[in-house]
């Protein structure tokens, strides 16, 4: 009897924990959608900020976030692919592999505000770029790098070794094998990792607040130096501290809803592949 009681109690408590975790997401989406939906219209996406955030839309904020994300992706991909190849192909020694993994772990844990300070010193001041979309993109690239690399590494680990052996048997050189077998076969890992990485950085403010983004007036960048962009998260961050007009509240929630939509879309597209690869890597 007592065993049964403990069993039910234990299962009940853990169920509550799971319910709580899922409930938080439900509440969060509901709370934001309820307040943000009235702000959403076609014009919200196509118009600029008007009346200091109380009217108009977030067109250039979306553009700015898009520019930052794209720059980060372009900058991070060659490095991520290289690190994954180093791990999966070139490093044979387990110790070295582990050192590389450890480095990625540490980079993954790096507080984003520390990256922001680093960027402020290097890009804004040493390079004299001032606030620039490129600084922001490069800093975000550093933050998304471990996510993309690990996803790709996990995908490479699941690549059947007979592919490589067959290619090797055909007399292909190692670099040929990489370009014609390994990379095409792990393309899904590259895509999944990129989407996850983008979802992770889309909402970051700490790395870009001192280096890349301003409140209003920036449109398409025309150069590198002194070329800031607007962005979605900074828009919320500023307005939540400094909105005068009560009409701004609706716009803040609307912007939050758009951001939530963006990161959820990125995560959801990546999800099926990610769960599959992840399970295989851990239990395959």
């Amino acid at each position, binding site marked *: 009897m007592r065993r049964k009681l403990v069993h039910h109690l234990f299962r009940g408590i853990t169920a509550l924990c799971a319910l709580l975790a899922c409930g938080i997401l439900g509440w969060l989406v509901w709370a934001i959608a309820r307040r943000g939906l009235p702000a959403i219209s076609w014009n919200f996406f196509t118009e600029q900020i008007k*009346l200091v955030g109380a009217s108009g839309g977030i067109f250039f904020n979306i553009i700015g976030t898009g520019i930052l994300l794209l720059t980060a992706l372009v900058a991070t991909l060659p490095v991520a692919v290289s690190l994954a190849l180093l791990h999966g192909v070139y490093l044979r020694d387990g110790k070295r592999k582990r050192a590389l993994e450890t480095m990625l772990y540490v980079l993954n844990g790096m507080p984003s505000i520390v990256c922001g300070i680093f960027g402020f010193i290097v890009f804004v001041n040493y390079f004299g770029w001032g606030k620039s979309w490129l600084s922001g993109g490069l800093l975000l690239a550093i933050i998304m790098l471990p996510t993309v690399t690990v996803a790709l590494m996990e995908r490479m680990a699941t690549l059947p070794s007979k592919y490589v052996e067959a290619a090797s048997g055909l007399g292909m050189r190692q670099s040929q094998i990489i370009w014609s077998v390994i990379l095409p076969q792990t393309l899904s890992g590259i895509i999944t990792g990129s989407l996850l990485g983008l979802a992770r950085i889309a909402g970051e403010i700490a790395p870009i607040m001192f280096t890349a983004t301003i409140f209003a007036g920036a449109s398409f960048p025309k150069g590198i*130096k002194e070329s800031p962009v607007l962005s979605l998260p900074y828009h919320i961050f500023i307005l939540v501290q400094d909105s005068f007009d009560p009409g701004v509240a609706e716009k803040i929630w609307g912007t939050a809803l758009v951001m939530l939509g963006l990161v959820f879309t990125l995560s959801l597209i990546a999800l099926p592949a990610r769960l599959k690869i992840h399970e295989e890597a851990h239990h395959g």
Partner: protein
Amino acid sequence: MKVHLFALLALIGTPLLSVQADTLKINGSTTVNLPAAEASEILRSEKKMDIQIDTQGGSAGGISMLGEGLVQIGMISKHVSDEERAKFPKVTFKEIQVGEDAVALIVSADVWEGGVKSITKQQAADIYEGKIKNWKQIGGPDKRIAFFNKEPGRGTWEVFVHWVYGSPKKAPQVSFPEVGGNEETRNKVASTKGALSQLSSSWADGKTVFALSIKTEDGKEISPANENIANRSYPLSRPLFLLTNGEPTGDTKTFVDFMLSDRGQDLVKKHGYLKLSELK
């Protein structure tokens, strides 16, 4: 082939690396930001001007970024101090007044309804130095004072300590929870019992937060109402400035002129500040 590649790179690279000279950059006080940001929206659409505006670091941020040549116009809600002038000897700071505002000491509803409607300079100093910790010490409800201090660098904070201590340098070193933006201040005071903070008087709406009157030594109570700001009887009134390096020219001049025009002045009024013509 290689030569072509380099030529191509150079072609792409040249415009990328050139500094943008035709963009008007503005940074500074969140208080001045409201009319200035709206003015930029108008100039952007009517005159096709390229104007970027930000509020990093408040008034101090506006002054230092103008000093370093990162912006052409600073927005400030206080005077430029001698120290700040000394920090940038090569820059000729020119203050151009576009309006007038006041710093109000605002309290939450429970304090207001508990009978605290005014405050003396001495009481403000005692609260700031932690000698007065409860509202009942100045005739209010029995509630600890939750004082939110404006963060350093904000014009609002400087105007406050200027009034109490004569200069920011003479202000004692204190630690309170800090607030930055105006809405953050209003929101936190409104939602906290026994709260007090410094805020631009135009944000003190009289519904969620309430502006205290200042009780002078001869017992007069002066509220931060527009007429008292206009005739300078309210002691914490402050000019709102656009700050330029020397006499404004080009786009900078266009912007300054617009802010001084009737339409620009109407924007100042719209956001709750006093127009220049209302000042005596």
